[in-house]
């Protein structure tokens, strides 16, 4: 069997239709409110907002790739941010200097340790006690958030050293720091998931758990490491959130929880596990962010944004379901027949990317 023409393969991929969607959005909104949406201010606000949801979605994606789900990511991010904030508030007063810098680094590491501990807990319960991921992380989400509320009584901790505030609000060479942090997490994560045995095994595990176990992989340890990785990414989300708001709270970003799942599925992550790429997720995030910022510019309610996001997911799902007669199948067959008639056309419906 000959491989399909590279161009046909690109068009058939889930990433391609997101690119089309982005192009449509740019044309539509560009003609309506282009100067404001894609002006300096619009792009700037997009670049500062996308990383929060983006980092949380990456954390969710790791778990979904393995066929699981991690509902505790936001609680983890917040507890980790509160740990950093609490530790910073204990910093002995005095002149700045290296002692203060050391204390700051120690605080961040303490926050990281807390996040990893939650990940280990999730991984143990899911991998070794065989509790289903949705149940286990529902429990740990309640527990971790409860711990954060119990310790802080729901209050906001604020006022951080310049280094942390810079992480959320500064920019380097015109690039906002949150975006740099996002890229610095997303790119290595993408490499990890596609190029290392550990990363490939996560997706294989999501695709066929039994086959992975029978091929000699310790699936319990693999699950443990998957959820530690998810929490590790959630830690960066917590760090960026606290830096951007210059404060930490047990309930920040809570409404994002279900949106991260929405973003992952829109980005082509299979909810049943096994398939999904960071590139697709990033494109989906761009789609969501353009819609969100456009709604702000148009003066529409932020809740309407949520409704449109949900509508987009249903619409994409409907396109998938009707792919036999859908727009993308049409585009696909156009490209395969007109541009690359010599190559074998991929069978419709059987063209799962990866």
């Amino acid at each position, binding site marked *: 069997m000959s491989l399909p023409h590279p161009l046909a393969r690109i068009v058939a991929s889930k990433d391609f239709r997101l690119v089309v969607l982005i192009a449509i959005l740019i044309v539509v909104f560009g003609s309506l409110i282009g100067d404001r949406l894609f002006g300096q201010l619009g792009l700037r606000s997009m670049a500062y907002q996308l990383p929060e949801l983006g980092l949380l979605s990456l954390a969710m994606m790791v778990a979904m790739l393995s066929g699981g789900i991690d509902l505790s990511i936001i609680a983890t991010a917040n507890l980790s941010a509160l740990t950093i904030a609490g530790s910073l508030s204990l910093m002995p007063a005095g002149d700045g200097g290296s002692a203060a810098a050391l204390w700051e680094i120690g605080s961040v590491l303490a926050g990281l340790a807390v996040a990893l501990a939650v990940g280990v807990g999730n991984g143990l319960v899911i991998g070794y*006690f065989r509790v289903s991921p949705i149940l286990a992380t*529902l429990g740990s989400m309640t527990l971790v958030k*409860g711990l954060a509320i119990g310790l802080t009584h729901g209050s906001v901790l604020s006022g951080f050293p310049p280094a942390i505030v810079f992480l959320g609000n500064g920019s380097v060479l015109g690039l906002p720091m949150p975006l740099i942090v996002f890229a610095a997490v997303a790119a290595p994560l993408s490499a990890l998931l596609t190029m290392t045995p550990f990363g490939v095994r996560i997706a294989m595990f999501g695709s066929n758990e039994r086959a992975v176990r029978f091929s000699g992989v310790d699936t319990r340890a693999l699950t443990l490491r998957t959820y530690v990785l998810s929490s590790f990414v959630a830690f960066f989300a917590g760090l960026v959130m606290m830096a951007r708001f210059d404060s930490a709270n047990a309930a920040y970003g809570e409404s994002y929880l279900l949106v991260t799942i929405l973003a992952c599925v829109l980005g082509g992550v299979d909810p049943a596990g096994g398939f999904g790429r960071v590139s697709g997720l990033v494109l989906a995030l761009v789609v969501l962010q353009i819609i969100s910022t456009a709604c702000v510019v148009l003066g529409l309610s932020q809740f309407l944004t949520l409704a449109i*996001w949900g509508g987009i997911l249903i619409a994409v799902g409907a396109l998938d*379901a009707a792919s036999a007669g859908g727009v993308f199948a049409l585009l696909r067959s156009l490209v395969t027949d007109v541009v690359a008639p010599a190559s074998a056309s991929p069978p419709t419906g059987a063209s799962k990317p990866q």
Partner: protein
Amino acid sequence: MLKAARGFRQSQEFWLVMVTATLVVVLSILRPNFLSLQNLLDLMSSYAYTGMLVLALFVVLIAGGIDISFAAVATAAQYAALTVANSYNIGWIGVTLIAAAIGLSLGLVNGFLVYALGLASIIVTIATQSIIFGLVLTITRGQDIFSLPEWFTRGVDWTFTVSPDGTEYAINLQMIALVASLVVTWLLLNRTNIGRQVYALGGNPDAARRIGFRVFGLNLFVYGYMGLVAGLASIVLAQYTQSVSPTALVGRELDVVAAAFLGGASVLGGAGSVLGAALGIALLAIIQNGLTLLGVSSYWSGFSTGVVIVVAVVAMARDARRRWRDSPGM
């Protein structure tokens, strides 16, 4: 007989009964007023909304699906029905009908989309939750309704006994609704043909389809039932809280999901009993009420609930694994 007894001893319900009973004994020793009639009636009233939703969600879980959108559905039904009630004199029947109709139709939309899109039900209902909640908040601008018709706020109370010291004990709308949905859900799952089909669908969807069950119809039925109950529960809740708040319900749906799983619904579908669901609700209610009575700061109630959920799911998973190992042929 002995076999049946052993079967019960190994079941999820047995563990729930044991844990709940232990908690009840400990609490009533520490705080004698825990077992007072008044406290139990109060508990039932305040958990009526959650309880009704847990029972309906249980049906969806048994069918192998999940619904995340019920809180948004309840918000829409509640807001619409009581907005109309504030302008027109539609009475209890009118309010109930409007809420039920909105809940049912949104539920049917869920059922249709889950079947037609072929996507995981959790994904579809997250999307519909976003759509419904987003639109409701856009239209209402997130404003609460505090003034409700007088006949509505008065509610329904039947005093059934008066204690010697003059305290009246009454049965109210919340208790009736909770008990009614318990009875209806039990009858539905255990005494009707469609209820058995729901179990079969969750147990093995392919087999159910090949036998000739109308899977589309069953989907419409379970999600429709969930929507209908969400609509009715929203009225029960509005009567209890004496207000309508479009932002109060969404965001807390995972509590309901947790209670349903605690009650023994399998993540894979096909299993679970109404008794278990009732015990799951009771367990959560008793823990939260018990902590309040013990004087634990409400700031720690989330943490305690989380600990109980984690311990319970780990214990139940170990139990299930043991049964799996002991079962013949494995």
